[in-house]
């Protein structure tokens, strides 16, 4: 178990760096996770488009979206998504959007 500090509050991460409680997420958490987990100093408009869509999808369905939906909604080519999040859509983008780790081979 590790912790990150966001706005004076200590938030718990699980052993793989995912937020233990997805409800604690807000945009400032994403920025801190980006630096701590993905080594991203700044999040661009493209990063935010992906993160915001994943978060909205999760709020509605409790699931991570398909990468097809990410590309269709943001207009980003697939390969660009992988460039933006070096750890990929699950361990990169979904983690920054505060989702729990998805089931399956990830």
């Amino acid at each position: 178990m590790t912790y990150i500090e966001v706005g004076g509050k200590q938030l718990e991460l699980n052993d793989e760096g995912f937020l233990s409680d997805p409800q604690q997420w807000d945009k400032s958490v994403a920025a801190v996770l980006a630096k701590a987990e993905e080594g991203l100093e700044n999040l661009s408009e493209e990063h935010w488009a992906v993160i915001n869509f994943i978060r909205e999808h999760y709020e509605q369905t409790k699931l991570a979206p398909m990468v097809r939906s990410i590309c269709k909604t943001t207009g980003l080519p697939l390969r660009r998504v992988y460039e933006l999040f070096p750890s990929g859509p699950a361990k990169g983008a979904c983690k920054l959007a505060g989702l729990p780790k998805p089931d399956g081979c990830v």
Partner: protein
Amino acid sequence: MSEDTKKDSYEEHISGLTPAELAKALQTFCDKIEFGDAAQLNSCLHCGLCADTCHYYLASGELEALPAYKLNLVSAVFKNQHTRLGKITPALTGAKALDADMVSRWVDSLYGRCSLCGRCALNCTLGINISRLIRLARTTLASVNLVPPELQSTVNTAVDKGNNMGIPRQEWLDTLQWLDEELQQEVSDSAAHLPIDQSDTRLFYTVNPREPKFFPLSLLATAKIFYAAEESWTFSSDYYDVTNYGLFSGDDEASGVISARLRDSMHKLRANTLVLGECGHGYNANRWEAPEWLAGAYGFEVKSILEIIADYIRQGRIKLDPSRNQKRVTLHDPCNLVRLGGIIEEQRFILKRAVSDFVEMYPNRAQNFCCGGGGGQLSMTRFSKRRIEAGKIKAEQIRATGAKIVVAPCHNCVDQLSELNKEYKLGVEIKTVSEMVAEALVIEH
């Protein structure tokens, strides 16, 4: 008690196990032991040669990771149940009852320090199939709902939703339609298409759900190869998941439910051959274990996609230009596909024709080290730090090759290798065999 040592509900379940639960677990243990298992559970000579084989033991040096120690945890309970001396004088024989303390040690060592890779059996002077016996202990724990919850969650999702990532049917179909467009662009042919639910094709192709969910380039690559070979093939709209995490959790019942679905899809589609995508444990589960779980032979042919691609090359159905893949490539041998599955040379035959600079890592083939991601380890967050630590051996194997691309015919391995790449700063790309072949394809029609 500090925050870091507080028990979660799973650990509380273990410490509060009821006599009825323990009795049920023991009953499962006794029911599942076959004659050969009993002989092996009584055979370990404690020679210690298995120490050199286990990536967990080599990385940590901890006794709890030593294969003979792990085997002994299972043998101790066996002796207590089934041998006269073990019942009368357990202290003299090392026999131990299956109580909450023993369950806790089973979980820590048999789920938490083993990827069921089977490498320990290579050095065993008596040929004890240690990973089989460890899975037997997992089956015992599964019978009383003691699979670590993160691993159980993936099994549940597969059983409840039809695939291990819970992809809704429409999302799967939308993704295939999207890939249609990508394939048409890729091969400059508006008639190129990914077929769904076509009856009486030669092949029914199955995939790992993480491909449509997050990493569809490998799917696109395989579709491109089928296109180039002018293959008769299909996807299924309902059951298409090649994985079976019941193999890892030890739950034979769930394993049977999951494997019955691909068999039923085959019957529905009336294809000739069930083709298993690049998935190590999916190959082992569906090729070798499923007929056991289903208590009957399939009645149809089962092949790895690697066998199919190798045949295309041998028969001249596809043409490859290795100069399109110039970077140095090495190959990781997934334990369940290679050591436990028997698909050993096909991937080498293919890569030597698809890339211009192929190098082996050492050791390789059946002797290869596990990447650390198998056996359900990728799911079990509670043991993830050990998983990354145990992967150090694989990372050093890779680094020594000087390769820029690591090919892994297993999506589970691909994910673990990607994490090792980040953790140990290897600076490599991780790809599937199909991706390398698709890159080298020369399409003439």
